[in-house]
């Protein structure tokens, strides 16, 4: 069942829950100690500003999927992980116009870990700015992020992904990969993977590649009979497939967000 949540409300999550957010405000979700939960959130905003706060208590495990559909809005996520807690986070942001996002994952507890898969795109004239921060505030913390930015029409995407490993955070591991796909001549993507390392005994890596879809991949698909448009669409869809797969774990949620996920790649129907 899809639930509504009201601003300033705090929810304690157990098992699997689905929420829809449509109004400005601060929302807080708490995952109790030792609980394993799945949380699906759909954020549908027009000229609004929301802040979503998540608190993972020790030994908790959260699978979090957030799909947003926005017009001229601002979104802030603050996710705090305590000792031995684990986060698997799938995030898709689509905007009809401007969008500003600041997402921060704080690995505050010893041996806490986060894995992130994020897809961001805008309609033809959209302008997206934002940052994704990983703060390693304790030792033996791990994070891994895959970020995909899809820019069409006159879209402009400007994002920083920042990993901060503070002094003394021994044996922490941080890795971030950014892939920007330019789907038109006028689209722009400026993305920076940034590592701020204040201690020696850690592992950190980053990578960023921005370009058009590989011409050889398009050729290969066309050589089997797909048109160029179909080839580009099926390759673009590959970026949101992991999120569709996660969303599919809750049938009701999948039905709710699928049209918005498909908007992300410029398609309004599920063809496959």
């Amino acid at each position, binding site marked *: 069942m899809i639930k509504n949540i009201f601003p300033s409300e705090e929810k304690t999550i157990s098992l699997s829950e689905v929420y829809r957010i449509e109004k400005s405000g601060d929302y807080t979700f708490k995952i109790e100690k030792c609980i394993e939960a799945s949380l699906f959130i759909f954020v549908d905003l027009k000229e609004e500003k929301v802040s979503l706060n998540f608190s993972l208590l020790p030994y908790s495990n959260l699978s979090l999927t957030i799909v947003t559909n926005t017009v001229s809005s601002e979104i802030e996520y603050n996710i705090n992980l305590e000792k031995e807690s684990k986060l698997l986070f799938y995030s898709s942001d689509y905007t009809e116009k401007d969008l500003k996002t600041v997402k921060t994952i704080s690995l505050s507890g010893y041996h806490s870990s986060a894995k992130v898969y994020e897809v961001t795109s805008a309609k033809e004239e959209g302008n997206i700015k934002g940052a994704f921060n990983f703060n390693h505030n304790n030792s033996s913390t791990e994070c891994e992020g895959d970020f995909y930015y899809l820019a069409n029409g006159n879209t402009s995407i400007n994002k920083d992904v920042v990993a901060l490993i503070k002094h003394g955070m021994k044996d922490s591991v941080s890795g971030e990969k950014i892939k920007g796909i330019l789907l038109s001549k006028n689209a722009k993507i400026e993305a920076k993977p940034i590592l701020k390392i204040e201690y020696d005994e850690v592992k950190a890596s980053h990578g960023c590649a921005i370009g058009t879809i*590989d*011409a*050889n*991949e398009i*050729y*290969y*698909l*066309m*050589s*089997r*009979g*797909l*048109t*160029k448009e*179909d080839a580009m669409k*099926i*390759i673009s*869809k*590959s*970026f949101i*497939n992991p999120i569709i797969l996660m969303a599919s774990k809750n049938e009701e949620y999948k039905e709710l967000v699928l049209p918005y996920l498909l908007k992300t790649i410029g398609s309004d129907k599920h*063809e*496959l």
Partner: protein
Amino acid sequence: MSKLIIKDLWVSASGEMILKGVNLSVESNETVALMGPNGSGKSTLSYTIMGHPSYKVEKGSIEIDGEDILKMSVDERSRAGLFLAMQQPYEINGVTNRDFIKQAMDKRQTKDGHIVSLYKFAVKLDKAIEDLHMEKDLADRYVNEDFSGGEKKKNEILQMKMLEPKMAILDEIDSGLDVDAINIVSDNINALKEKNKMGLIVISHYRRLFEHIKPDKVAVLINGTLVKEGDSSLLDYIDQNGYEDLKKEAGIEDEVTLLGECAFKENKK
């Protein structure tokens, strides 16, 4: 009955002329073995037939059933019944074999004017995977990603079995395959040829493949020119003598490259 006709084909890539007046034809139920030393233009010919944008046709024609395929886009060529099993198939991260092949099949209508149903597609795909002795999870793996060399080649044949082309060009389909895999792949190619009377251009460096896929005609391409055509006895000749005598017979000298202040590079015929 289909026929692919290549006439006086001149093709360049990166400003260099690679094919120099190639004439070749293949018809339904016919197998042409295309042989030649490395760098002779065999892959250029196959990519040109399949419309790869890196290759520019300077002169000549390629027709299938009287239609000029040089005017067709890559996807139109595929839907016209052409298929290229590539020497080095591309990897596509995030796109599953199942999604990709289903979409490719949806672009083709069945004889009654409909697209193949999901059920029939699934049954056919499972059968093709089984026929090729491939892992069952292959359908849901990303196209060619983390495939071994042999799996990639089998995946090309899997796609051919699903799409059932009129004419297929198999570019070194045997490279990367062990002896057992060559038998399996060859059996599948022969079965599809038998079923659909498919025409084949088979490129290989090794006679062994042609022990399984019997050619009706053997064509030898050297330095961008077809220097000799003959029956399967030509395979034995090449196996024993290599290409040197055929080069001399055709008046082709090795490329001469002199280095120094007055360095030049020249191909002589």
